[in-house]
Structure formats: C-alpha cells, structure tokens
C-alpha cells in the first residue's frame, strides 16, 4: 500500500491521506476523476471495483465517499472523499465512464441529496418522482407532507432524461436526451407482474419478440430507511435490516452488528460467533432454495417451485423454534445474539442436512439436466467477467462469470477462516452457470454447518454492552457476503447515540443494473428467465 500512497501523491499532490479504519484520501472535486482513473489503471494493483458510493451532507459541504477495492484481492481497499461547498447547485464529476455501477448510484445521490454529476449520461432521479420538492438526506430537509402531497391522478410516463455534459472547451452544457426512439414498441413489464420478484418496473422496447432496450424505474417500495435511521439509536436500527433483503435477513443484520461492534470495539463471545455462523449458513440455504424455486417457476416448472418451498419449511421451523420468527429473524444484536439455541437444535439441523443432501440429488435428476431446461438456460444472458467487475455484480451471479468475489474467503469474518469450504466459481457466465452455482453453494453451506454444529462451545451468548451505545467519531465500514452478493454497511458517527449517516450497500442494485446489458437482443421469455437467474430482491434496491 506504500506504493499506492506514492502514486496518489504523484497524481494529486494536494491530496490528504489519512489512516483511519480504511486508507482515506480526500481530494478536491475537480481532481477526483483523475485520481480514480489512475488508481483503476494502475498495473500493479488495479482498484477496479466501486463497492460503495455514499452521498453525504457533511454540514459545511455536500460530498461523496467512494470505497474502491481491487478485483483480484478484495481486502485491498481505499476510500476517496470529495465534496463541494456549493449547496445551491452542487456539481461533481461523474465516474460512470470508469465504473459502470456508478450510474444508478449517482442518480440515487442526485435524488436524495441534490448533487448533479457532470458527464453522467442520464441524470434522472432514481427513487423519487421528478417533481419531488426537497432533498431528503440533507440535514435541512423539510419533511412537511404538504410539500409533497400524494397524487391521485395518473400521469403518463415521460422518457426524457436531463443531463449535464462537459464539452471539449470545458464548458458545461445542459441538454436532454430521449431514452427511446420515436417508433419503438414499448411495453411495461411490472410493477405488478408475477415474475419480477417484487415491484420493479422495466420499460421495455420490443422488436417482435426481441428486447431492444430496457429502462429501469425503481422506487416503488422506497421507505427512506437511511433517513429514518438518523433519528434512532443503534439497537433500534437493527430491525430495519430484516426488511431490506428479507431473504438474507440474518446476514444483513450480522453486517450491521459487525459494523457497530468494530467501531465500539466490543468483542463477541465465541458461542455467539458459532451461533451466528450456523444461522447465517442456514439462511443462505433457505435463500438459495427460494432462488431455485423462483427460477424454475419463471421457466415454467411450477412443480419445482413447490418442492423448493417444502424444503424451506424445515429451515423456517428451525428458525421459528430458535428465535421466534420465520422471515423476520431478529436474532443478532450488538454484542452477540438475542436467543440461545434450543435443546434439539443440533438434532434438527443434523437431520435436515441428511434430508437436504438427498433432495439435492433429486433436484439434479429432476431439473438440472432436463433438455428443455438446458435449452432455456445455456448461453442465455451472458455476462463477461469485465462487465461483472465494472457493474460490481457479486454473489453467485458474479461468480458465475469467473470473478472470485466471496467475502467469506477474501475478508473472513465470524468463523469463516476456521472452517473448510470451497468457493464456487464458474466461467461460462450464462444463466446455467448461475443456476448451478446456487445449488453447489447449498452443498457448501451444508458442509460448513456440519463442521460447526457439534462443536458449539459453552459460554455467553452476548457480550455486556452499555444500554446506550455511543460510537466514537469516525467513519466505519463493514462488508459481508449476503446471499445475493456483497452487503455493506457504512456508518458515520459524530459521537452521538444516533448515526450521522448510515448507508446500506445493496447487492441487488448491481444485479438489476446489469439487466439492460445482458438482456439486449434476447427474447421476452428469456428476459424473464434471466431475471430469475439473477435473483434480485427489490426492497433491497429501494431501501
């Protein structure tokens, strides 16, 4: 990392480098693009993954934090900070030409904070209506409902995007661009549709059966969780994570608890780590079962859907007996876990492992080699490794394209460095590779649970934590491997019992952002099938 510091100072001599929880570099806004490009094109260690793009209102300035990491070694991270003091018309340079994943993130920052990005080709607001008054994440936002009343009239969709571009002379030109051509046949897939796995609106331009262009409209389930968290104490924020990606509820909550524990330097007892890891892996199995069931349902085999749900019931019964909830699991708290394991936990889990292995063989016989299923999945929805890295597609979808991105292997947390498991990576990059990835990951999770289930040590299930948790001042990051990809938490604290800014990095946003790319020139039926293989969950995107 010393070489990286030299490189930064060579490129931008005025950069301020600090060694906080991560290596943080603060630069002026006009130099950020240059610095990011240098770091990305660095031959020795290329920082080519934009993990988090966090817009914040720092009081005196509006700014953005970028967490970059290297695709070859995810533990090498760097944070770039920049900002602008102009609150009337804040402008920053866009990094969409370096990292494709910045498109939707920058649109989100525009909607919530008002910062416009120069050279972003599409500067519409992402979650909110175009005529929303005010910018919610700013500290001086007026939350009066009179300003933004509920509209009861139906409004036609407008497919025009404003943008700010910089021309060769260095002047800023504001213009608009049409998203679709004049005579495109446009249909709306969603928001109410049996197959979009939630409320997602894809405006699709079709040419007969072929998809020409997709435009994603999001925000139908935006609840403003990040803004709500700024007025709640840390234990009170925990329940929100169960309502983001509800299928990997336990893992998301684990990520948030880890962030707070690392910041407050609380040590989690050994027994709690075991319970956390076992419950995480059970959660992963149940989420992948649902992903398999929904993917096969989208392709037309309804029977497989019900088989997947039947297996899932056993895991949900185990969750119910441990912590009282089936989907809203509520198990992790800051410092450990809330509920101890019940008496027959080990017996139930071991019998489930045997049952599930048998069922995996049955799924293999039933669906994985079926000639019709192969015809619907092989060579459909190809995602190359470069695109996966640029769009920051992690999880089984990213690993299906050949990118080894499992946080459990690269930055181990909980007990993942003590157990033996394989990281499942396939290189074909089509729907079939993603499908097989999930089934193999269920097997690996069973293997992890087997190694841990008999060795749970005695002890406390939760460390002693003060009733009011105050984090010391600073910026804290945590990254965990959720079922769909990398889930990240960012907390900036100014010493209060409330966070100053809380941000969740959503894995499904990256999965949806790559849909317009891989569904181009595929048929409508395949669009549905590819959506099933990507397996995104919408409340995770909208927060």
């Amino acid at each position, binding site marked *: 990392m010393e070489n990286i510091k030299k490189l930064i100072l060579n490129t931008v001599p005025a950069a301020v480098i600090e060694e906080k929880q991560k290596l943080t570099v603060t630069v002026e806004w006009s130099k950020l693009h240059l610095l990011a490009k240098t770091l990305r094109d660095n031959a020795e260690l290329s920082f080519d993954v934009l993990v988090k793009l966090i817009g914040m209102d720092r009081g005196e300035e509006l700014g953005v934090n970028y967490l970059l990491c290297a695709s070859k070694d995810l533990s090498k991270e760097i944070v770039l900070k920049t900002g602008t003091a102009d609150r009337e018309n804040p402008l920053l340079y866009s990094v969409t030409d370096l990292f494709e994943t910045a498109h939707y993130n920058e649109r989100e920052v525009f909607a919530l904070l008002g910062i416009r990005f120069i050279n972003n080709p599409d500067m519409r607001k992402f979650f909110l209506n175009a005529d929303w008054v005010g910018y919610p994440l700013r500290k001086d936002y007026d939350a009066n409902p009179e300003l933004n009343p509920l509209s009861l009239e139906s409004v036609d969709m407008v497919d025009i995007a404003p943008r700010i571009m910089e021309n060769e002379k260095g002047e800023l030109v504001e213009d608009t661009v049409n998203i679709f051509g004049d005579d495109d046949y446009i249909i709306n897939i969603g928001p109410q549709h049996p197959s979009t796995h939630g409320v997602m609106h894809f405006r699709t331009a079709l040419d007969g059966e072929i998809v020409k262009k997709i435009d994603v409209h999001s925000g139908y389930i935006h609840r403003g969780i990040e803004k709500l968290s700024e007025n709640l104490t840390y234990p009170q924020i925990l329940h929100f994570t169960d309502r983001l990606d509800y299928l990997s509820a336990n893992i998301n909550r684990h990520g948030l608890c880890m962030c707070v524990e690392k910041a407050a330097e609380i040590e989690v007892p050994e027994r709690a780590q075991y319970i956390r890891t076992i419950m995480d892996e059970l959660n992963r199995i149940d989420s992948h079962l649902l992903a398999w069931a929904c993917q096969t349902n989208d392709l037309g*085999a309804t*029977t497989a859907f*019900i*088989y997947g749900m039947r297996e899932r019931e056993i895991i949900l019964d185990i969750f119910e007996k441990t912590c009282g909830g089936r989907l809203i699991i509520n198990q992790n708290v800051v410092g450990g876990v809330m509920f101890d394991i019940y008496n027959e936990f080990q017996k139930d889990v071991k019998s489930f492992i045997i049952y599930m292995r048998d069922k995996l063989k049955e799924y293999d016989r039933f669906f994985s080699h079926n000639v*019709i299923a192969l015809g619907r999945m092989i060579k459909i929805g190809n995602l190359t490794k470069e695109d996966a890295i640029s769009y920051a597609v992690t999880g089984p979808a990213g690993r299906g394209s050949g990118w080894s991105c499992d946080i459990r292997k690269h930055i181990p947390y909980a007990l993942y460095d003590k157990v033996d498991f394989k990281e499942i990576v396939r290189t074909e990059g089509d729907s079939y590779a993603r499908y097989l990835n999930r089934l193999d990951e269920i097997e690996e999770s069973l293997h992890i649970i087997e190694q841990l289930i008999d060795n749970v040590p005695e002890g406390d299930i939760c460390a002693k934590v003060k009733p009011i948790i105050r984090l010391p001042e600073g910026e804290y990051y945590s990254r965990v491997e959720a079922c769909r990809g990398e889930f990240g938490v960012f907390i900036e604290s100014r010493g209060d019992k409330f966070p100053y800014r809380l941000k969740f990095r959503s894995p499904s946003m990256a999965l949806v952002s790559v849909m317009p790319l891989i569904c181009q020139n595929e048929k409508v039926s395949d669009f549905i099938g590819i959506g099933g293989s990507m397996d995104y969950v919408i409340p995770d995107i909208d927060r």
Partner: protein
Amino acid sequence: MKFVLIRIIRSFMILNYSQPLEVTNLTSWLDSALRSSMSEFWVLLIEFVLVGVALLAAYAVIALILIYAERKITAFFQARFGPNRVGKWGLLQSVADMIKILLKEIVKINRSDRFLFFAAPFFMIVASMATFGAIAFGKGLHAIDFNIGVLYVTAVSSLGIIGVLLAGWSSNNKYSMIGAMRSGAQFVSYELSAGFALMTIVVLAGTMQFSEMIDKQQYCWNIFNGHISSIIAFVIYLISGHAETNRGPFDLPEAESELTAGYHTEYSGLQFGFYYLAEYLNMFIIASIATTVFLGGYLPIQVKGWEAFNGIMGYIPSYVWFFGKTAGLIFLSLWVRWSFPRLRIDQLLNLEWKYLLPINLVNIVVMVILVLTGLTLTDLLPGIF
C-alpha cells in the same frame, strides 16, 4: 299402461347375456318404440334433438370431471392436496367453479372490436363440439360415422385457431396480441405432424372410417400391429396433440409467468368459461382420438382362442374400456405437463420442423413398406392376432 310395461320388461329381457351392460339394446328399443308410434320425420327430429342434448350434456359433464381430476392429480404431483373443502374430497369444487363463472360480470373493454371480441370464443367451442360428435364412445354410442372420419376430425379441429387469433386481436392489448401470434404459429405447425401421424395408421388400417378401424383391432390393437412404426406415430401424435391444444410444455401462449394470461386475458365470466372448457375438452379429444386410432377404441382386450377370458373381458361394458383408456392417456398428459419447464417459441417451432416432421415422413414410408411386405403382426402371426 300395463301392456307397455310388459313390453319394456320383455325387451330388456332380450338381453345379450354375455354383455348385459351395453346400451345398444336401450337405444334400439327406444328407436323402435318411437318408430312404431310416429312418422319418420318426427322420429328423426326427436332422435337428433336427444342425441344433441346428450352430447352437450356429456361435453359439460366431462369438462367438469376433467377439471376436478386435473386439480387433484396436479396437487398430488406437487406435494400438496388439491381442493378438499367443497364436498368430501372436494368433489363439488367443479360445480362451485361453474356456478361462479356463470355469475361473473362480463367486463366490456374500451376501444376493442366489439363484434369480434364477442364472437371469438364461439369459434373455439364450435370447433371442439363438432369434433366431439365424431368420437365413438362405446358400442352404439357413435354419433356421426363418416367414411372419412379421420379427415373430418383433422379438418374441423383446425377451426379453433380462428378463435384464438380473433381473441388476441380484438382485445386491444399488447400482451394478448403477442400471445395470439405465438399460438397461431404453433397451431399451424403442429397440425401437420398430427395429420401425418394419423395418416400412418390410415395406411395400416386401410380405411378412414372410425368404426371400421375399430373393428379391425379386435384381437390386436394398432399400436402393436404396426410395432416400430406405430409406436413412433403414437408418440408423435401425442406430442403434436398437446402442442396444438396449448398444453403441457407447449403452453407458451398462456404462460402465466410471462404474459399474465395470454390471448384470453381480457375475457371474464362465461366467455372465459368457454375458453377454459374448450382447452380441457380439446385435451380429451386428442386423448380419445389417440385411443380410437391406436389403442382399439372401445374394444376390450381379446385373445384369439381364450374364450373364457374374452367373455370376462367382454362383460365389462365398452364405454368403460373407452373411458379407461382415455383416462390413462389424460393422466400421461398431466404427468408430462407438470414435470417439465416451458419451451420457448423458437425452440417449439424448431422441434416441429427439424425433428418431428422429418421423423414423421420417414415413418410413413416405413409403415408403407411394413404393410406391403406383410410384416405387420396380423400378417406375421395370424394364429394369435
């Protein structure tokens, strides 16, 4: 009155003792009773009306039974019970559904083509009922016995596609039109294969008339008679039949997870009921034509020389044999539908034009060779078959 009663009882006593449960005696008694009391014109009129009413009733009742059977068997494949609240084991579920469909409001669509929208379901139902009339349900239960039976059935069942295309077009809905276009392409392609498969058996049997074809299968069903060639034709006929009626893995036009309901999205109430009924009955018709042509229709299993065995088999009435064989084929159809995902439209058409059609053509040639060189089972082993 006592006289008529004695005549009724005596006519019933002229029973064919080896086959007492057949209805041929009932129908011939009815015919003679009517003829003896009225003129020719009235007798024919009353008989036509009775047969028509019986067919329509059979149509509706078979549809209800099929819907119930499908729901229950589907549920058992899918690790759940089917309907079991309405009546014991859910037996009255179909009746409740029928009453519900009759009571629903028919929603008028804005800016749709009113006449075509209204007329479209009728094409489907009429085509399916016309084919229904040509099926031989049992001995003496054959409504229309054309001498070009196979050709008639193939021709009339093609009328159904007009209903689908009209529905998609007149609904003024982009999704419906996509569904209707897909269905049109699929139907026209698979008609070919179904027709050729039936032609193979016409070559074997030497006649297109259903009743003669059935009579020839007394000791050996056609599927065994033509061995290799018949079995291939049977499989091809079943696949094409399912594709024609939008069932099984070929149900792309009404793929629920993609297009909500395809060409009949905008229909409600009784008009939707027509499409629903027609789909189930088409499946029944395909199964029954396959039974008639390949599996011996309403004839029982008979072995030449085992008279006692033949007597026992013959005691079971012919309609039970017919419905039993058809039920077996319908079960096969349900089994296939719930085990496989859906084929995409280009893969569907691929299957037809690159696989089924060439195999079909070669198969016809093989069957012709088998018949002309006397290699069918009836020719090879005349003692047994």
